[in-house]
């Protein structure tokens, strides 16, 4: 991030003689390599993992990388991905929520009971389902802040309690179907972005990336700080543009339905949370509490409020994930939010690079992690392997991801980046 275009006046942040110079594109590449060596892996392992998974499954079944399958894979990853986004919020604080699966199931059940059985308008039913998530998080945070019960235990109790609530709501019939012509089901199953719109979105993202980068660099130069060079910004935007355009053309070719609106919705959520984590005072206080709670408290941060916000965000994202899952399935049943949803969401956040120990992570990790999990599950389904293998392989990948994180931590410690 620290390049200098004109070497003439030395920027305030580059005049220490101990700083090893890094100029222009080559400096940026070398800086990245150095950071990875020092254990700042960022998204590198996940992306490598995704590539390996794609190569392996494509070799085993040529349908895996077909545009049709990829479109489907993207849509399929959204509900658990949204839940994983909530998990990132609590993991950043070094806490955990094991009840996200149950909460998502309850939210789906409430949506269906209200919308189908009671005839409540759809929007209101969704809002009420989300409010259950808000309520669950608020309850957890009161117990956590007032009584000091570990979040592990609170959410384990929540897991059971909300599972019971879900079964009670569904009653003896055990499953409720959502009508196929409802807007929600269409949104989750049938609404795809027209190709032209998708291209415009890619252009806007690449352009926006360059514009904000350029604006930031200008502001930094004006304040006599070093900023990213135009070369680097341009190279980054062009890379995003090319990858985006190739992806769009591929997904809309050969029987592929393209990109679903629900996936776009997920991307927007990821970007909003990324902004919150990296560019707001609240996001910064989350990292601070996760890194050193006492220091955060002494800095005047209301630590209790940060915990409360994180638990509420997590449960609300879980409820939203539950709503999307029932829309995707067009039904809710006793298994909704059960079995592997919980662990997949947590595994996704961790595989994506969010530390289990607090203070490190990003919103992007939820996106990358869920793509890994979903790719594995999808690939194994194509191979007609049953869920027993899926569990074992996902477990192995999770262990690998945490092992990579631990090794990276060690090398960070040895190169003083802790």
């Amino acid at each position, binding site marked *: *991030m*620290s390049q200098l275009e004109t070497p003439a006046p030395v920027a*305030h*942040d580059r005049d*220490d003689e*101990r*700083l090893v110079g890094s100029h222009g594109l080559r400096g940026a590449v070398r800086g990245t390599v150095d950071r990875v060596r020092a254990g700042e892996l960022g998204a590198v392992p996940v992306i490598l993992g995704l590539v390996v998974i794609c190569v392996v499954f494509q070799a085993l079944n040529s349908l895996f990388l077909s545009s049709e399958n990829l479109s489907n894979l993207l849509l399929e990853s959204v509900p658990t991905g949204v839940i994983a986004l909530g998990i990132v919020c609590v993991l950043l604080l070094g806490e955990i929520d094991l009840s996200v699966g149950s909460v998502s199931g309850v939210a789906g059940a409430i949506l269906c009971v209200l919308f189908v059985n009671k005839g409540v308008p759809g929007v209101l039913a969704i809002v009420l389902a989300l409010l259950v998530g808000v309520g669950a998080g608020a309850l957890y945070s009161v117990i956590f802040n007032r009584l000091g019960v570990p979040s592990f235990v609170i959410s384990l109790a929540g897991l059971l309690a909300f599972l019971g609530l879900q079964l009670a709501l569904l009653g003896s019939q055990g499953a409720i179907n959502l009508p196929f012509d409802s807007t929600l089901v269409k949104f989750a199953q049938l609404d795809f972005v027209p190709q032209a719109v998708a291209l415009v979105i890619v252009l806007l993202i690449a352009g926006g990336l360059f514009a904000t980068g350029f604006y*930031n660099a200008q*502001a*930094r130069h*004006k*304040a*006599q*700080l070093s900023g990213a060079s135009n070369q680097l910004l341009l190279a980054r935007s062009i890379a995003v543009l090319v990858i985006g355009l190739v992806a769009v053309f591929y997904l809309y070719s050969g029987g592929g339905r393209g990109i679903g609106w629900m996936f776009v919705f997920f991307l927007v959520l990821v970007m909003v949370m990324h902004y919150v984590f990296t*560019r*707001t*005072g*609240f996001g*910064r*206080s989350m*990292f*601070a509490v*996760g*890194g*050193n709670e*006492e*220091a*955060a*408290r*002494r*800095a*005047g*941060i*209301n630590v209790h409020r940060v915990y409360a916000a994180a638990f509420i965000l997590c449960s609300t994202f879980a409820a939203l994930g539950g709503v999307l899952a029932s829309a995707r399935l067009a039904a809710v049943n006793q298994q909704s939010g059960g079995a592997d949803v919980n662990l997949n969401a947590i595994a996704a956040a961790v595989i994506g690079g969010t530390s289990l120990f607090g*203070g*490190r992570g990003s919103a992007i990790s939820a996106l990358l992690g869920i793509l890994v999990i979903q790719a594995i599950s999808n690939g194994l389904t194509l191979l007609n392997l049953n869920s027993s293998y899926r569990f074992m392989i996902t477990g192995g990948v999770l262990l690998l991801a945490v092992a990579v994180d631990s090794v990276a931590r060690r090398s960070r410690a040895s*190169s*003083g*980046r*802790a």
Partner: protein
Amino acid sequence: MTASAMPAEQGTEPVLSLRGISKTFGAVAALTDVDLDVGPGQVVALVGDNGAGKSTLVKVLAGVHTADSGTITFEGREATIVSPHDAQALGIATVYQDLALCENLNVVENLFLGHELNKKRLDEVAMETRSWELLRELSAKIPTVRIPVASLSGGQRQTVAIARSLLGDPTLIILDEPTAALGVAQTAEVLNLIERLRERGHGVIMVSHNMADVQAVADVVCVLRLGRNNGVFNVDEISSEEIVAAITGASDNVVSQRARRRAGATPATPQEG
């Protein structure tokens, strides 16, 4: 030994005055009836042996602990401090001995933690510019402000912690052993800085074990012993030996015995506390 209680006569009205502060932890009375006055532009050294209650007193002022009894008068008004936020709102900034920095955050993020500029869209440029200004003012030897604090040395971290306390332009600054982890040049810088704080009219409380530092910058020495006041002295009118005597509670103490044994007869300034 001139251990007569001598309140701070300097300045006009004290910025901070404590009366009868007591604090117990279970069966242990950490502070008993402690009085303290700090005037504007006055550096008060708070000295005492380990367990004398210095850190507890600092934490009471910083809002980490709440006093069981006693009154705190800040800028002429009685104040209650029950949280770190209260202390900051009053204008009391504290630099802790156990450095309260987040290791996973970088220097700028730590400096502005809790007081970020423009919380809805962080103004990174302004924060970084201000950080460089502050660090230059302190002559800090920090190569870049965009690395995690984890990779800084103890002295560099202390500098960051002190720089942070200055951001809110506080009325009273409390430094808990500010030079304990610093090298020679950085100690001198911190002492210079404390003098600059005094010139700017800040009240300063400095907890220290280092008599040389106390003699160098303090105006008034307040001695605590076993949680009680054991004398307040003008630093010009007292020698290091007398301070040590007040700290240990006897003129014939381990430190003076050592000094006599060395027989050098030079008016000794004890090397270490």
